[in-house]
């Protein structure tokens, strides 16, 4: 088996006091340098993807960082300075405009040559609604409906240009074959979207979409993120997700290697200790999940240990693999590049 290695790189780390142990002064967190250095370190280490958490609201309280650059911007900033690592931002599904979300993520995919992903996350805090001047969505059924619609629209927009829509036909003077660009005419419960996209189909066709177990319908996403307070709970959640139809299941894991102060309870398995212990834990998980997403307690302390000891040990043991330069994130995860929905419909039509 092969274990996909992902790392969450938001802020200074999962621990609220992580900023006190950062390698830079607090006012350097919100700079391009900090983002670029960390993603470069994760890529050099051999991680398959880096993720970037997000919300319109301040990320922390209690004296911790209250500043955050939006996740798509951070992912895009490093897209052209990296070559193998997948870049996976969080974008909310409750209030954001799916048309914008689709364009932003497709653009990330172009800039990274097919290494873009998306963690589709609900905005459960009604203060996001107040910021946007929108009516609050709080009922679980409504949050689920908004999420379903958002993912559907975003994915359909990525499909709205067939791969060969740009024809540059000198003889007829046509740049585009308009029959290969499609309106969606999406009609949801709370809004409609006409389409087509303004961004041609992204390099991966469809970016890799991540959702959370229990929230997201597994049929809408490529990767289901599972978590639980113990390893047993996490494995059980993974089994349930697989049974529910999840294509790939990744486990969420808090890790504290440098500080050996475990993070606050987060609902995720929390590992605190040395590199060898973590390698053993990941070996155990390897039997049950397709990948992991590590949440370092203190990025500047844990990432160097992961890079020097943990990832090399996993690579040597053949448990994890370094992504190959030039591969797309889909390719690295063993996912096909799908044909567009519209092309599939046409093929079905003509074969009848």
């Amino acid at each position, binding site marked *: 088996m092969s274990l996909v290695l992902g790392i969450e790189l938001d802020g200074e780390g999962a621990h609220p006091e992580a900023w006190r142990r950062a390698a830079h002064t607090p006012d350097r967190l919100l700079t391009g340098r900090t983002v670029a250095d960390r993603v470069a370190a994760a890529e050099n280490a051999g991680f398959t993807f880096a993720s970037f958490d997000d919300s319109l609201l301040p990320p922390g309280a209690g004296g911790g960082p209250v500043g955050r650059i939006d996740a798509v911007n951070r992912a895009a*900033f490093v897209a*052209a300075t990296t070559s193998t690592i997948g870049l996976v931002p969080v974008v909310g599904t409750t209030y954001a405009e799916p048309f914008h979300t689709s364009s932003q993520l497709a653009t990330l995919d172009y800039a990274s040559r097919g290494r873009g992903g998306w963690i589709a996350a609900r905005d459960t805090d009604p203060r996001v609604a107040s910021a*946007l001047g929108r009516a609050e969505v709080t009922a679980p059924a409504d949050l689920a409906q908004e999420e379903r619609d958002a993912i559907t629209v975003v994915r359909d927009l990525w499909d709205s240009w067939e791969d060969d829509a740009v024809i540059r036909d000198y003889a007829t*003077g046509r740049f585009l074959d308009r029959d290969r660009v499609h309106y969606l005419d999406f009609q949801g419960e709370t809004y409609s979207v006409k389409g087509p996209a303004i961004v041609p189909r992204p390099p991966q066709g469809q970016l890799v979409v991540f959702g959370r177990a229990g929230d997201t319908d597994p049929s809408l996403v490529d990767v289901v993120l599972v978590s639980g307070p113990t390893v047993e709970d996490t494995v059980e959640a993974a089994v349930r997700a697989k049974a529910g139809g999840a294509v790939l299941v990744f486990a969420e894991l808090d890790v504290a290697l440098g500080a050996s102060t475990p993070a606050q309870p987060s609902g995720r398995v929390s590992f605190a200790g040395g590199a060898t212990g973590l390698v053993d834990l990941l070996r155990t998980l390897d039997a049950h999940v397709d990948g992991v997403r590590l949440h370092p307690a203190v990025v500047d302390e844990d990432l160097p240990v992961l890079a020097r000891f943990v990832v090399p040990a996993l690579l040597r043991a053949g448990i994890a693999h370094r992504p190959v330069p030039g591969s797309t994130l889909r390719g690295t995860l063993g996912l096909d590049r799908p044909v567009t929905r519209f092309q599939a419909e046409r093929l079905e039509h003509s074969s009848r």
Partner: protein
Amino acid sequence: MTDNSYARPGAQVHLGVFFQGVNHTTIWSDPSSGSQIDFETFRRVALTAERGLFDAFFLGEGLRLREQEGKILDLDIVGRPDAITQLAALAGITRHIGLVATQNTTYNEPADLARRLSGLDLLSGGRAGWNAVTTDNAWTGENFRRGGFLDHADRYERAGQFLDTARAIWDAWADGAVATRTDAPSWATPDGVREVSRRTSQFDVTITPTLPRSGQGHPVIFQAGDSPAGRDFAAAHTDVIFSRHGTHFDAALAFAEDIRARVRRAGRPEDDVKILPGTQIVLAENASEVEEKVRWVLEGQYTGQTALSLVGQVWGRDLSDRDPDGPLPEFDPVPAPISVTRGAARDGKDPLAIAREWRALAEAQNLSLRQVAIATTQRSGFAGTPGQVADELTRWVRSGATDGFNISPYLVPTGLDEIVDLLVPELQERGSYRTEYEGSTLREHLGLRPALSRREVESRQAVG
């Protein structure tokens, strides 16, 4: 009108490159024309502009594919990236050049857009700009939750309130709010971040912003719009006007004088708002080759089908089976704009009046349909040897008609190369162009005063 009504002997020419994205001005049929969407194209243009010490790299915005006669327009370059995301990627591989995103105020919300723009500003070290447009395309709303659209007056009302709210968000963090030591009592000083709460006719926003001010305060504000309401909006709220007056000197000067008067009326110094018209520049190494090069460019831009399409937009019907090298249609345009014409040539005017004008022109100069389309819709800008064009650009800027130019290359990605290799050195020789970047922010490149809202705060403090 004299050239010297606003003479500025030492003035410098500011240059930007406008990567339009969707247009018939890019000659896609040329073998050297690259992908309109691959990142490599954008990288190449941005790095060339930076090599040429340009102030800024601009991206346009359009949120729905253009249509004509209910069908997607298939003749032009189409398909473009999301501007802020693309500029963030370019920020990672450039060091100096400003990065300006066209973003409309109708289909965005201030809390989100202000945050994404300041994210770009922080990542790029103070190089972000925002070209705030209001979007006159009625049908764009069908791609968004709000649906529909706003009429002209309401669009600028919303734009003004949008900018005020965005500025409040950008100014919510006190300078020095974030700790500079890891043993500080907290990451940000408790009263260093203010909640912003606005309730206006267009917005109901309550938010605790998540970003500090950048090295240039906040993104530089550009405006592109030409109506009186648009000009007043620019005079009251913005730093730079991206104008369409970049072809005829007298018109440019008249526009600049109108803007300066409006800026004074808004209580600002008259040079507070810079003017950068969009323009096209055609260079030939020898004067004798200029005319031929211009003809080559125009013929590449106005294919027969494109000319028929532009005229069809006015006539309100499909003319694609007519002869582009024949006469204008003998019948009249469909009088009411009932057929949903969604192109540029008609520009909101009465089609019958336009047809009368165009017929008169065709008759007077014996022009074919295609030649009329070229004569009436092209904004050719400048053509000449590098030396001639450098003289002209310098004259325009030094006589107060503009502060510089926003160049749209007719070939992408290679079209900017000759501007940078041939024209820029000529400008430098004339002392009208920088020989290195002196500052690090876009605001510094453009020679702008500090951000408007900050000045307002300071002057209020000085008074109070």
